[in-house]
Protein backbone atom coordinates (compact mmCIF):
# COMPACT_ATOMS: atom_id res chain seq x y z
CA UNK A 1 0.00 0.00 0.00
CA UNK A 2 2.70 2.51 0.93
CA UNK A 3 4.50 1.65 -2.27
CA UNK A 4 1.36 2.28 -4.29
CA UNK A 5 0.83 5.61 -2.56
CA UNK A 6 4.47 6.60 -3.10
CA UNK A 7 4.42 5.63 -6.74
CA UNK A 8 1.14 7.45 -7.34
CA UNK A 9 2.43 10.50 -5.48
CA UNK A 10 5.43 10.59 -7.83
CA UNK A 11 3.09 10.20 -10.80
CA UNK A 12 1.03 13.05 -9.42
CA UNK A 13 4.11 15.22 -9.05
CA UNK A 14 5.13 14.42 -12.61
CA UNK A 15 1.66 15.20 -13.96
CA UNK A 16 1.49 18.37 -11.89
CA UNK A 17 4.81 19.62 -13.22
CA UNK A 18 3.70 19.05 -16.80
CA UNK A 19 0.45 20.87 -16.05
CA UNK A 20 2.57 23.71 -14.73
CA UNK A 21 4.34 24.06 -18.07
CA UNK A 22 0.94 24.52 -19.71
CA UNK A 23 -0.58 26.66 -16.99
CA UNK A 24 2.42 29.02 -16.77
CA UNK A 25 1.92 30.24 -20.33
CA UNK A 26 -1.84 30.33 -19.97
CA UNK A 27 -1.87 32.27 -16.72
CA UNK A 28 0.47 34.91 -18.12
CA UNK A 29 -1.52 35.34 -21.33
CA UNK A 30 -4.67 35.48 -19.24
CA UNK A 31 -3.28 37.66 -16.48
CA UNK A 32 -1.27 40.22 -18.41
CA UNK A 33 -3.26 40.47 -21.58
CA UNK A 34 -6.67 39.63 -20.09
CA UNK A 35 -7.17 37.32 -23.04
CA UNK A 36 -9.04 34.02 -22.88
CA UNK A 37 -7.09 31.63 -25.06
CA UNK A 38 -9.12 28.48 -25.60
CA UNK A 39 -6.57 27.45 -28.23
CA UNK A 40 -3.81 27.02 -25.66
CA UNK A 41 -4.57 23.29 -25.64
CA UNK A 42 -4.23 23.25 -29.41
CA UNK A 43 -0.72 24.66 -29.11
CA UNK A 44 0.01 21.72 -26.80
CA UNK A 45 -1.39 19.28 -29.34
CA UNK A 46 0.36 20.84 -32.33
CA UNK A 47 3.56 21.01 -30.29
CA UNK A 48 3.33 17.30 -29.49
CA UNK A 49 2.79 16.52 -33.18
CA UNK A 50 5.78 18.68 -34.13
CA UNK A 51 7.94 16.84 -31.61
CA UNK A 52 6.71 13.41 -32.72
CA UNK A 53 7.19 14.19 -36.40
CA UNK A 54 10.64 15.69 -35.87
CA UNK A 55 11.68 12.79 -33.63
CA UNK A 56 10.64 10.32 -36.31
CA UNK A 57 12.48 12.25 -39.00
CA UNK A 58 15.66 12.69 -36.97
CA UNK A 59 15.35 9.31 -35.29
CA UNK A 60 16.20 10.95 -31.99
CA UNK A 61 13.83 11.96 -29.22
CA UNK A 62 15.94 14.84 -27.96
CA UNK A 63 16.52 16.41 -31.38
CA UNK A 64 12.81 16.02 -32.04
CA UNK A 65 11.99 17.72 -28.75
CA UNK A 66 14.26 20.67 -29.55
CA UNK A 67 12.97 21.04 -33.10
CA UNK A 68 9.34 20.65 -32.03
CA UNK A 69 9.65 23.29 -29.31
CA UNK A 70 11.31 25.68 -31.75
CA UNK A 71 8.59 25.00 -34.31
CA UNK A 72 5.83 25.67 -31.79
CA UNK A 73 7.53 28.89 -30.73
CA UNK A 74 7.56 29.96 -34.38
CA UNK A 75 3.87 29.11 -34.71
CA UNK A 76 3.17 31.08 -31.54
CA UNK A 77 4.98 34.08 -33.02
CA UNK A 78 2.92 33.93 -36.22
CA UNK A 79 -0.34 33.56 -34.28
CA UNK A 80 0.47 36.41 -31.92
CA UNK A 81 1.39 38.82 -34.71
CA UNK A 82 -1.49 37.88 -36.99
CA UNK A 83 -4.43 37.22 -34.67
CA UNK A 84 -3.93 37.63 -30.94
CA UNK A 85 -2.65 41.19 -31.24
CA UNK A 86 -6.10 42.10 -32.56
CA UNK A 87 -7.87 40.28 -29.76
CA UNK A 88 -6.31 41.79 -26.63
CA UNK A 89 -8.54 44.82 -26.56
CA UNK A 90 -11.69 42.90 -27.40
CA UNK A 91 -14.17 41.45 -24.92
CA UNK A 92 -13.98 37.91 -23.60
CA UNK A 93 -16.76 36.71 -25.88
CA UNK A 94 -14.87 37.68 -29.01
CA UNK A 95 -11.71 36.07 -27.68
CA UNK A 96 -13.55 32.86 -26.87
CA UNK A 97 -15.15 32.76 -30.31
CA UNK A 98 -11.95 33.42 -32.25
CA UNK A 99 -9.86 30.94 -30.27
CA UNK A 100 -12.65 28.35 -30.54
CA UNK A 101 -12.27 28.82 -34.28
CA UNK A 102 -8.55 28.21 -33.89
CA UNK A 103 -9.26 24.90 -32.12
CA UNK A 104 -11.35 23.75 -35.08
CA UNK A 105 -8.64 24.77 -37.52
CA UNK A 106 -5.85 23.14 -35.51
CA UNK A 107 -7.68 19.82 -35.10
CA UNK A 108 -8.56 19.64 -38.76
CA UNK A 109 -5.12 20.75 -39.96
CA UNK A 110 -3.51 18.02 -37.86
CA UNK A 111 -5.94 15.48 -39.28
CA UNK A 112 -5.11 16.63 -42.81
CA UNK A 113 -1.36 16.44 -42.32
CA UNK A 114 -0.90 13.42 -40.07
CA UNK A 115 -4.18 11.54 -40.52
CA UNK A 116 -6.67 10.47 -37.86
CA UNK A 117 -4.44 7.81 -36.28
CA UNK A 118 -2.46 8.71 -33.13
CA UNK A 119 1.22 9.34 -33.77
CA UNK A 120 3.80 7.15 -32.10
CA UNK A 121 6.44 8.85 -30.00
CA UNK A 122 8.91 6.63 -28.20
CA UNK A 123 10.87 7.58 -25.13
CA UNK A 124 14.66 7.47 -25.62
CA UNK A 125 15.97 3.91 -25.56
CA UNK A 126 18.26 4.53 -22.58
CA UNK A 127 15.33 5.61 -20.40
CA UNK A 128 12.89 2.84 -21.21
CA UNK A 129 13.68 0.70 -18.16
CA UNK A 130 12.84 1.23 -14.51
CA UNK A 131 15.25 2.51 -11.87
CA UNK A 132 15.34 1.61 -8.21
CA UNK A 133 14.74 4.36 -5.71
CA UNK A 134 14.57 3.60 -2.01
CA UNK A 135 13.51 0.00 -2.44
CA UNK A 136 10.97 0.24 -5.21
CA UNK A 137 11.10 0.56 -8.97
CA UNK A 138 10.01 3.60 -10.89
CA UNK A 139 10.14 4.18 -14.68
CA UNK A 140 13.30 6.09 -15.55
CA UNK A 141 11.55 8.21 -18.16
CA UNK A 142 8.99 9.50 -15.67
CA UNK A 143 11.80 10.36 -13.31
CA UNK A 144 13.50 12.35 -16.08
CA UNK A 145 10.25 14.23 -16.69
CA UNK A 146 10.11 15.13 -13.02
CA UNK A 147 13.69 16.40 -13.09
CA UNK A 148 12.99 18.29 -16.30
CA UNK A 149 9.82 19.80 -14.88
CA UNK A 150 11.53 20.86 -11.66
CA UNK A 151 14.35 22.42 -13.69
CA UNK A 152 12.02 24.39 -15.94
CA UNK A 153 9.89 25.46 -12.99
CA UNK A 154 13.01 26.67 -11.17
CA UNK A 155 14.25 28.55 -14.23
CA UNK A 156 10.85 30.10 -14.75
CA UNK A 157 10.75 31.17 -11.11
CA UNK A 158 14.17 32.83 -11.41
CA UNK A 159 13.15 34.47 -14.66
CA UNK A 160 9.89 35.84 -13.33
CA UNK A 161 10.93 36.64 -9.77
CA UNK A 162 14.52 37.79 -10.26
CA UNK A 163 15.06 39.16 -13.77
CA UNK A 164 14.16 42.56 -15.19
CA UNK A 165 11.92 41.06 -17.86
CA UNK A 166 10.19 39.07 -15.15
CA UNK A 167 9.63 42.25 -13.21
CA UNK A 168 7.96 43.82 -16.25
CA UNK A 169 5.82 40.73 -16.66
CA UNK A 170 4.69 40.88 -13.05
CA UNK A 171 4.10 44.60 -13.30
CA UNK A 172 2.08 44.05 -16.45
CA UNK A 173 -0.06 41.43 -14.73
CA UNK A 174 -0.71 43.71 -11.76
CA UNK A 175 -1.45 46.90 -13.71
CA UNK A 176 -1.08 47.07 -17.45
CA UNK A 177 -1.75 50.78 -17.97
CA UNK A 178 0.68 51.86 -15.29
CA UNK A 179 3.39 49.61 -16.71
CA UNK A 180 2.82 51.08 -20.15
CA UNK A 181 2.95 54.59 -18.74
CA UNK A 182 6.30 53.83 -17.12
CA UNK A 183 7.78 53.20 -20.55
CA UNK A 184 7.79 49.42 -20.79
CA UNK A 185 7.19 48.10 -24.28
CA UNK A 186 4.17 46.04 -23.28
CA UNK A 187 3.36 45.13 -26.89
CA UNK A 188 6.75 43.47 -27.33
CA UNK A 189 6.47 41.90 -23.91
CA UNK A 190 3.12 40.36 -24.90
CA UNK A 191 4.66 38.82 -27.98
CA UNK A 192 7.56 37.40 -26.01
CA UNK A 193 5.28 35.95 -23.32
CA UNK A 194 2.99 34.38 -25.89
CA UNK A 195 5.86 32.79 -27.83
CA UNK A 196 7.39 31.54 -24.59
CA UNK A 197 4.02 30.07 -23.56
CA UNK A 198 3.74 28.27 -26.90
CA UNK A 199 7.23 26.81 -26.48
CA UNK A 200 6.34 25.55 -22.98
CA UNK A 201 3.19 23.95 -24.41
CA UNK A 202 5.23 22.05 -26.97
CA UNK A 203 7.71 21.02 -24.29
CA UNK A 204 4.92 19.56 -22.17
CA UNK A 205 3.32 17.93 -25.19
CA UNK A 206 6.62 16.39 -26.30
CA UNK A 207 7.57 15.14 -22.85
CA UNK A 208 4.13 13.66 -22.21
CA UNK A 209 3.94 12.22 -25.74
CA UNK A 210 5.55 8.85 -24.91
CA UNK A 211 3.23 8.42 -21.89
CA UNK A 212 -0.05 9.58 -23.41
CA UNK A 213 -1.12 9.21 -27.00
CA UNK A 214 -0.23 11.98 -29.44
CA UNK A 215 -3.67 12.36 -30.96
CA UNK A 216 -6.32 14.81 -32.11
CA UNK A 217 -8.34 16.23 -29.25
CA UNK A 218 -5.58 15.73 -26.68
CA UNK A 219 -5.50 19.49 -26.22
CA UNK A 220 -9.10 19.96 -25.16
CA UNK A 221 -9.08 17.83 -22.03
CA UNK A 222 -5.77 19.21 -20.86
CA UNK A 223 -6.90 22.76 -21.56
CA UNK A 224 -9.70 22.41 -19.03
CA UNK A 225 -7.24 21.10 -16.45
CA UNK A 226 -4.92 24.04 -17.13
CA UNK A 227 -7.83 26.42 -16.62
CA UNK A 228 -8.68 24.73 -13.35
CA UNK A 229 -5.06 25.16 -12.28
CA UNK A 230 -4.86 28.87 -13.00
CA UNK A 231 -8.24 29.54 -11.40
CA UNK A 232 -7.18 27.73 -8.26
CA UNK A 233 -3.83 29.51 -8.24
CA UNK A 234 -5.14 32.94 -9.14
CA UNK A 235 -5.00 34.32 -12.66
CA UNK A 236 -1.69 35.93 -13.61
CA UNK A 237 0.36 34.44 -10.79
CA UNK A 238 3.23 32.10 -11.63
CA UNK A 239 3.51 31.00 -8.03
CA UNK A 240 -0.22 30.29 -8.01
CA UNK A 241 0.15 28.28 -11.22
CA UNK A 242 2.90 26.16 -9.65
CA UNK A 243 0.95 25.49 -6.45
CA UNK A 244 -2.26 24.92 -8.39
CA UNK A 245 -0.58 22.50 -10.79
CA UNK A 246 0.90 20.44 -7.99
CA UNK A 247 -2.42 20.37 -6.14
CA UNK A 248 -4.39 19.39 -9.23
CA UNK A 249 -1.78 16.86 -10.38
CA UNK A 250 -1.53 15.04 -7.08
CA UNK A 251 -5.21 15.25 -6.14
CA UNK A 252 -6.28 13.95 -9.53
CA UNK A 253 -3.72 11.13 -9.70
CA UNK A 254 -4.08 10.03 -6.10
CA UNK A 255 -7.85 10.34 -6.25
CA UNK A 256 -8.08 8.07 -9.26
CA UNK A 257 -5.71 5.54 -7.71
CA UNK A 258 -6.91 5.48 -4.14
CA UNK A 259 -10.52 6.65 -3.94
CA UNK A 260 -12.09 3.42 -5.22
CA UNK A 261 -10.13 1.42 -2.63
CA UNK A 262 -10.93 3.82 0.18
CA UNK A 263 -14.61 3.89 -0.69
CA UNK A 264 -14.76 0.12 -0.76
CA UNK A 265 -13.70 0.13 2.87
CA UNK A 266 -16.47 2.52 3.85
CA UNK A 267 -19.37 1.65 1.57
CA UNK A 268 -21.04 -1.46 0.20
CA UNK A 269 -19.10 -2.81 -2.80
CA UNK A 270 -21.86 -1.99 -5.26
CA UNK A 271 -22.14 1.66 -4.29
CA UNK A 272 -18.36 2.03 -4.15
CA UNK A 273 -17.93 0.65 -7.66
CA UNK A 274 -20.31 3.28 -9.04
CA UNK A 275 -19.30 6.18 -6.86
CA UNK A 276 -15.51 5.67 -6.89
CA UNK A 277 -14.67 6.52 -10.50
CA UNK A 278 -17.31 9.27 -10.60
CA UNK A 279 -15.98 10.95 -7.50
CA UNK A 280 -12.39 10.55 -8.67
CA UNK A 281 -13.03 12.32 -11.94
CA UNK A 282 -14.91 15.24 -10.42
CA UNK A 283 -12.60 15.65 -7.44
CA UNK A 284 -10.57 18.52 -8.91
CA UNK A 285 -13.68 20.35 -10.06
CA UNK A 286 -15.16 20.04 -6.58
CA UNK A 287 -11.88 21.37 -5.23
CA UNK A 288 -11.96 24.30 -7.61
CA UNK A 289 -15.58 25.13 -6.82
CA UNK A 290 -14.79 24.98 -3.10
CA UNK A 291 -11.73 27.22 -3.46
CA UNK A 292 -13.66 29.73 -5.55
CA UNK A 293 -16.46 29.66 -3.01
CA UNK A 294 -14.16 30.65 -0.16
CA UNK A 295 -11.50 32.60 -2.10
CA UNK A 296 -13.14 33.92 -5.27
CA UNK A 297 -9.81 35.34 -6.50
CA UNK A 298 -7.86 32.11 -6.19
CA UNK A 299 -5.07 31.29 -3.76
CA UNK A 300 -2.49 33.84 -4.93
CA UNK A 301 -4.27 36.71 -6.68
CA UNK A 302 -1.92 38.72 -8.91
CA UNK A 303 -4.03 41.84 -8.68
CA UNK A 304 -4.18 42.55 -5.00
Amino acid at each position, binding site marked *: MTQLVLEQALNGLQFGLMLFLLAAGLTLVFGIMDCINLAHGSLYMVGAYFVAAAAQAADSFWIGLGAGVAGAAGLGLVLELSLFRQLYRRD*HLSQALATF*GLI*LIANEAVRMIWGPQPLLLNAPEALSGPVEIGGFFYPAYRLVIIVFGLGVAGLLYLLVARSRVGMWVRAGAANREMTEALGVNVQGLFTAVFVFGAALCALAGGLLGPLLAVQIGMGESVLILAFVVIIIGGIGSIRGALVGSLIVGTVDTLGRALLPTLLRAALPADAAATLGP*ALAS*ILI*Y*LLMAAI*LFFRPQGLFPARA
Partner: protein
Amino acid sequence: MAFYRPAHYQKPLVITLLLTLAMLPPVLDAWGQAFYIGFATRILIFALAASSLNLVLGFGGMFSLGHAAFFGAGAYVAAMCMDNGISDALFAFPLAMSVAGLLALVVGAISLRTRGVYFIMITLAFAQMTYYLFVSARVLGGDDGLPLTGRMTLGGLSLTSDGALFYSALGCLALVMTFLGRLSGARFGRTIQAVRDNEARMEALGYPVFRYRLVCFALGGALAGLAGALLANLTGLANPNLLQWTQSGTLLVMVIIGGVGYLYGGVIGALVLLCLEEVLAGFTLHWHIGLGLLLIAIVLFAPRGVAALFGKSNG
Protein backbone atom coordinates in the same frame (compact mmCIF):
# COMPACT_ATOMS: atom_id res chain seq x y z
CA MET B 1 -25.08 47.21 -24.90
CA ALA B 2 -28.39 48.83 -25.73
CA PHE B 3 -31.76 47.68 -24.49
CA TYR B 4 -33.64 45.24 -26.64
CA ARG B 5 -37.00 46.52 -27.85
CA PRO B 6 -39.21 44.38 -30.06
CA ALA B 7 -39.83 46.31 -33.28
CA HIS B 8 -43.35 46.57 -34.65
CA TYR B 9 -42.51 45.34 -38.13
CA GLN B 10 -41.44 42.01 -36.63
CA LYS B 11 -44.90 40.62 -35.99
CA PRO B 12 -46.11 40.13 -39.58
CA LEU B 13 -42.62 38.95 -40.51
CA VAL B 14 -42.66 36.29 -37.81
CA ILE B 15 -46.15 35.10 -38.70
CA THR B 16 -45.20 34.78 -42.38
CA LEU B 17 -42.08 32.89 -41.37
CA LEU B 18 -44.06 30.52 -39.15
CA LEU B 19 -46.55 29.79 -41.93
CA THR B 20 -43.72 29.17 -44.39
CA LEU B 21 -42.04 26.82 -41.93
CA ALA B 22 -45.32 24.99 -41.36
CA MET B 23 -45.42 24.22 -45.09
CA LEU B 24 -41.93 22.81 -45.05
CA PRO B 25 -42.56 19.11 -44.22
CA PRO B 26 -45.19 18.44 -46.93
CA VAL B 27 -43.11 20.37 -49.48
CA LEU B 28 -39.93 18.48 -48.63
CA ASP B 29 -41.88 15.23 -48.65
CA ALA B 30 -43.32 15.91 -52.08
CA TRP B 31 -39.88 16.88 -53.32
CA GLY B 32 -38.48 13.57 -52.11
CA GLN B 33 -36.10 15.28 -49.69
CA ALA B 34 -37.59 13.92 -46.46
CA PHE B 35 -34.10 13.77 -44.96
CA TYR B 36 -34.14 17.52 -44.65
CA ILE B 37 -37.16 17.43 -42.33
CA GLY B 38 -34.91 15.94 -39.67
CA PHE B 39 -32.26 18.53 -40.47
CA ALA B 40 -34.79 21.34 -40.15
CA THR B 41 -35.97 19.91 -36.82
CA ARG B 42 -32.36 19.92 -35.65
CA ILE B 43 -32.07 23.59 -36.53
CA LEU B 44 -35.27 24.38 -34.62
CA ILE B 45 -34.03 22.52 -31.54
CA PHE B 46 -30.64 24.20 -31.58
CA ALA B 47 -32.36 27.53 -32.16
CA LEU B 48 -34.24 26.88 -28.92
CA ALA B 49 -31.06 25.87 -27.06
CA ALA B 50 -29.12 28.86 -28.37
CA SER B 51 -31.99 31.19 -27.47
CA SER B 52 -31.95 29.87 -23.92
CA LEU B 53 -28.23 30.67 -23.73
CA ASN B 54 -28.93 34.07 -25.26
CA LEU B 55 -31.33 34.79 -22.40
CA VAL B 56 -28.51 34.11 -19.92
CA LEU B 57 -25.68 35.64 -21.93
CA GLY B 58 -27.26 38.37 -24.00
CA PHE B 59 -29.98 39.60 -21.68
CA GLY B 60 -28.58 38.58 -18.33
CA GLY B 61 -24.96 39.39 -19.22
CA MET B 62 -23.70 36.16 -17.66
CA PHE B 63 -20.93 34.55 -19.71
CA SER B 64 -21.65 30.90 -18.93
CA LEU B 65 -19.46 28.23 -20.47
CA GLY B 66 -21.49 25.45 -18.90
CA HIS B 67 -24.82 25.67 -20.65
CA ALA B 68 -24.42 22.22 -22.20
CA ALA B 69 -24.94 20.68 -18.74
CA PHE B 70 -28.58 21.77 -18.74
CA PHE B 71 -29.05 20.90 -22.40
CA GLY B 72 -27.68 17.41 -21.83
CA ALA B 73 -29.55 16.95 -18.55
CA GLY B 74 -32.81 17.55 -20.42
CA ALA B 75 -31.90 14.85 -22.92
CA TYR B 76 -31.06 12.39 -20.16
CA VAL B 77 -34.31 13.10 -18.30
CA ALA B 78 -36.24 12.37 -21.49
CA ALA B 79 -34.35 9.10 -21.95
CA MET B 80 -34.89 8.14 -18.31
CA CYS B 81 -38.62 8.82 -18.67
CA MET B 82 -38.80 6.48 -21.64
CA ASP B 83 -36.83 3.90 -19.72
CA ASN B 84 -39.37 4.01 -16.93
CA GLY B 85 -42.34 3.73 -19.24
CA ILE B 86 -43.33 7.39 -19.25
CA SER B 87 -43.71 8.23 -22.90
CA ASP B 88 -45.99 11.24 -22.72
CA ALA B 89 -44.10 14.39 -23.64
CA LEU B 90 -46.67 16.45 -21.76
CA PHE B 91 -45.20 14.95 -18.62
CA ALA B 92 -41.61 14.29 -19.70
CA PHE B 93 -40.84 17.72 -21.18
CA PRO B 94 -41.93 19.72 -18.12
CA LEU B 95 -39.99 17.23 -16.00
CA ALA B 96 -36.88 17.74 -18.14
CA MET B 97 -37.32 21.49 -17.78
CA SER B 98 -37.73 21.26 -14.00
CA VAL B 99 -34.69 19.05 -13.54
CA ALA B 100 -32.51 21.21 -15.79
CA GLY B 101 -33.88 24.34 -14.15
CA LEU B 102 -33.18 23.02 -10.67
CA LEU B 103 -29.67 22.03 -11.68
CA ALA B 104 -29.18 25.54 -13.07
CA LEU B 105 -30.56 27.00 -9.85
CA VAL B 106 -27.97 25.14 -7.76
CA VAL B 107 -25.09 25.86 -10.15
CA GLY B 108 -26.13 29.48 -10.44
CA ALA B 109 -26.50 29.97 -6.70
CA ILE B 110 -22.84 29.04 -6.23
CA SER B 111 -21.37 30.44 -9.46
CA LEU B 112 -23.01 33.84 -9.25
CA ARG B 113 -20.93 34.64 -6.20
CA THR B 114 -17.97 35.05 -8.55
CA ARG B 115 -17.35 37.62 -11.27
CA GLY B 116 -15.78 37.87 -14.69
CA VAL B 117 -13.51 35.10 -15.86
CA TYR B 118 -13.98 33.27 -12.59
CA PHE B 119 -17.66 32.95 -13.38
CA ILE B 120 -16.85 31.57 -16.83
CA MET B 121 -14.55 29.00 -15.32
CA ILE B 122 -16.76 27.92 -12.44
CA THR B 123 -19.70 27.32 -14.78
CA LEU B 124 -17.32 25.32 -16.94
CA ALA B 125 -16.24 23.32 -13.90
CA PHE B 126 -19.82 22.50 -12.97
CA ALA B 127 -20.54 21.41 -16.52
CA GLN B 128 -17.53 19.10 -16.42
CA MET B 129 -18.71 17.66 -13.11
CA THR B 130 -22.14 17.00 -14.60
CA TYR B 131 -20.48 15.37 -17.59
CA TYR B 132 -18.35 13.03 -15.49
CA LEU B 133 -21.22 12.19 -13.14
CA PHE B 134 -23.46 11.23 -16.04
CA VAL B 135 -20.75 9.31 -17.87
CA SER B 136 -19.71 7.28 -14.84
CA ALA B 137 -23.24 6.34 -13.78
CA ARG B 138 -23.90 2.88 -15.10
CA VAL B 139 -27.70 3.27 -15.09
CA LEU B 140 -27.21 6.11 -17.55
CA GLY B 141 -25.27 3.99 -20.04
CA GLY B 142 -21.82 5.41 -19.37
CA ASP B 143 -19.85 6.53 -22.43
CA ASP B 144 -22.42 5.04 -24.80
CA GLY B 145 -25.25 7.24 -23.61
CA LEU B 146 -28.81 6.23 -22.95
CA PRO B 147 -30.82 5.18 -26.01
CA LEU B 148 -34.53 5.90 -26.25
CA THR B 149 -36.68 2.92 -27.10
CA GLY B 150 -38.80 5.07 -29.37
CA ARG B 151 -40.22 8.54 -29.67
CA MET B 152 -42.65 10.03 -27.21
CA THR B 153 -46.27 10.89 -27.64
CA LEU B 154 -47.62 14.38 -27.22
CA GLY B 155 -50.96 13.93 -25.51
CA GLY B 156 -52.49 11.32 -27.81
CA LEU B 157 -50.35 12.25 -30.80
CA SER B 158 -47.39 10.07 -31.68
CA LEU B 159 -44.14 11.85 -32.54
CA THR B 160 -42.81 8.86 -34.48
CA SER B 161 -43.03 10.57 -37.87
CA ASP B 162 -40.43 13.22 -38.61
CA GLY B 163 -43.18 15.64 -39.54
CA ALA B 164 -44.88 15.36 -36.14
CA LEU B 165 -41.60 15.96 -34.34
CA PHE B 166 -40.88 18.92 -36.60
CA TYR B 167 -44.21 20.51 -35.71
CA SER B 168 -43.77 19.97 -32.01
CA ALA B 169 -40.27 21.47 -32.14
CA LEU B 170 -41.66 24.39 -34.14
CA GLY B 171 -44.44 24.81 -31.62
CA CYS B 172 -42.03 24.76 -28.70
CA LEU B 173 -39.73 27.28 -30.38
CA ALA B 174 -42.62 29.58 -31.25
CA LEU B 175 -43.95 29.43 -27.68
CA VAL B 176 -40.53 30.04 -26.17
CA MET B 177 -39.73 32.92 -28.51
CA THR B 178 -43.09 34.55 -27.76
CA PHE B 179 -42.39 34.11 -24.08
CA LEU B 180 -38.87 35.54 -24.40
CA GLY B 181 -40.16 38.45 -26.47
CA ARG B 182 -42.73 39.29 -23.81
CA LEU B 183 -40.19 38.76 -21.08
CA SER B 184 -37.61 41.09 -22.57
CA GLY B 185 -40.13 43.90 -22.69
CA ALA B 186 -41.57 43.16 -19.27
CA ARG B 187 -40.28 44.43 -15.96
CA PHE B 188 -38.15 41.35 -15.37
CA GLY B 189 -36.49 41.59 -18.78
CA ARG B 190 -35.77 45.28 -18.39
CA THR B 191 -34.36 44.73 -14.94
CA ILE B 192 -31.92 41.99 -15.96
CA GLN B 193 -30.80 44.06 -18.95
CA ALA B 194 -30.24 47.01 -16.66
CA VAL B 195 -28.27 44.77 -14.28
CA ARG B 196 -26.16 43.65 -17.24
CA ASP B 197 -25.42 47.25 -18.18
CA ASN B 198 -24.86 48.72 -14.75
CA GLU B 199 -24.89 46.38 -11.83
CA ALA B 200 -23.79 48.88 -9.20
CA ARG B 201 -26.55 51.29 -10.09
CA MET B 202 -29.26 48.64 -9.91
CA GLU B 203 -27.88 47.46 -6.62
CA ALA B 204 -27.98 51.02 -5.32
CA LEU B 205 -31.57 51.42 -6.50
CA GLY B 206 -32.46 48.54 -4.23
CA TYR B 207 -32.98 45.76 -6.76
CA PRO B 208 -32.07 42.28 -5.52
CA VAL B 209 -29.48 41.87 -8.26
CA PHE B 210 -28.35 38.40 -7.25
CA ARG B 211 -31.88 37.01 -7.22
CA TYR B 212 -32.75 38.50 -10.60
CA ARG B 213 -29.63 36.99 -12.11
CA LEU B 214 -30.27 33.63 -10.48
CA VAL B 215 -33.83 33.45 -11.80
CA CYS B 216 -32.60 34.38 -15.27
CA PHE B 217 -29.88 31.72 -15.10
CA ALA B 218 -32.31 29.02 -13.92
CA LEU B 219 -34.86 29.99 -16.56
CA GLY B 220 -32.20 29.67 -19.24
CA GLY B 221 -31.28 26.26 -17.86
CA ALA B 222 -34.89 25.08 -17.92
CA LEU B 223 -35.35 26.15 -21.54
CA ALA B 224 -32.12 24.40 -22.48
CA GLY B 225 -33.53 21.28 -20.80
CA LEU B 226 -36.57 21.47 -23.05
CA ALA B 227 -34.31 21.64 -26.10
CA GLY B 228 -32.35 18.66 -24.80
CA ALA B 229 -35.51 16.58 -24.37
CA LEU B 230 -36.54 17.40 -27.93
CA LEU B 231 -33.11 16.51 -29.27
CA ALA B 232 -33.17 13.16 -27.46
CA ASN B 233 -36.40 12.41 -29.30
CA LEU B 234 -34.89 13.40 -32.63
CA THR B 235 -31.67 11.40 -32.34
CA GLY B 236 -33.10 8.58 -30.22
CA LEU B 237 -30.18 8.86 -27.82
CA ALA B 238 -29.15 10.86 -24.76
CA ASN B 239 -25.56 11.32 -25.86
CA PRO B 240 -22.89 12.22 -23.31
CA ASN B 241 -21.36 14.47 -26.00
CA LEU B 242 -24.27 16.82 -25.36
CA LEU B 243 -22.82 17.54 -21.94
CA GLN B 244 -19.29 18.26 -23.09
CA TRP B 245 -17.81 21.73 -22.92
CA THR B 246 -17.35 21.83 -26.69
CA GLN B 247 -21.15 21.68 -26.89
CA SER B 248 -21.32 24.75 -24.67
CA GLY B 249 -18.80 26.28 -27.04
CA THR B 250 -20.97 25.48 -30.06
CA LEU B 251 -24.04 27.06 -28.45
CA LEU B 252 -21.94 30.08 -27.58
CA VAL B 253 -20.74 30.33 -31.17
CA MET B 254 -24.35 30.24 -32.37
CA VAL B 255 -25.38 33.07 -30.06
CA ILE B 256 -22.38 35.20 -30.99
CA ILE B 257 -22.82 34.62 -34.71
CA GLY B 258 -26.52 35.43 -34.46
CA GLY B 259 -26.16 38.43 -32.21
CA VAL B 260 -25.78 38.59 -28.46
CA GLY B 261 -28.73 40.25 -26.80
CA TYR B 262 -30.98 40.30 -29.85
CA LEU B 263 -34.21 38.36 -29.36
CA TYR B 264 -33.65 36.29 -32.50
CA GLY B 265 -29.87 36.09 -32.13
CA GLY B 266 -29.92 32.46 -31.07
CA VAL B 267 -32.32 31.44 -33.83
CA ILE B 268 -30.32 33.17 -36.54
CA GLY B 269 -27.07 31.78 -35.16
CA ALA B 270 -28.32 28.19 -35.08
CA LEU B 271 -29.65 28.51 -38.61
CA VAL B 272 -26.45 30.04 -39.96
CA LEU B 273 -24.07 27.67 -38.19
CA LEU B 274 -25.89 24.41 -38.95
CA CYS B 275 -26.51 25.38 -42.59
CA LEU B 276 -22.88 26.39 -42.95
CA GLU B 277 -21.79 23.05 -41.54
CA GLU B 278 -24.05 21.26 -43.98
CA VAL B 279 -22.86 23.28 -46.98
CA LEU B 280 -19.17 23.16 -46.08
CA ALA B 281 -19.37 19.43 -45.36
CA GLY B 282 -20.74 18.98 -48.88
CA PHE B 283 -17.68 20.69 -50.37
CA THR B 284 -14.87 19.16 -48.41
CA LEU B 285 -14.09 16.65 -45.73
CA HIS B 286 -12.04 19.29 -43.96
CA TRP B 287 -14.87 21.74 -43.49
CA HIS B 288 -13.86 22.49 -39.91
CA ILE B 289 -11.04 24.64 -41.23
CA GLY B 290 -13.46 26.74 -43.23
CA LEU B 291 -15.72 27.10 -40.20
CA GLY B 292 -12.83 28.08 -37.95
CA LEU B 293 -11.62 30.71 -40.41
CA LEU B 294 -15.14 32.02 -40.64
CA LEU B 295 -15.45 32.36 -36.86
CA ILE B 296 -12.23 34.34 -36.75
CA ALA B 297 -13.42 36.51 -39.64
CA ILE B 298 -16.69 37.18 -37.80
CA VAL B 299 -14.82 38.28 -34.70
CA LEU B 300 -12.56 40.57 -36.68
CA PHE B 301 -15.08 42.06 -39.09
CA ALA B 302 -18.65 41.58 -37.78
CA PRO B 303 -18.22 41.51 -34.01
CA ARG B 304 -21.86 42.20 -33.18
CA GLY B 305 -23.36 39.27 -35.03
CA VAL B 306 -25.76 38.84 -37.92
CA ALA B 307 -28.78 40.29 -36.11
CA ALA B 308 -26.92 43.58 -35.72
CA LEU B 309 -26.83 43.90 -39.50
CA PHE B 310 -30.60 44.43 -39.39
CA GLY B 311 -29.85 47.37 -37.09
CA LYS B 312 -33.36 48.64 -36.35
CA SER B 313 -34.32 46.28 -33.56
CA ASN B 314 -31.60 47.93 -31.54
CA GLY B 315 -33.28 50.94 -29.96
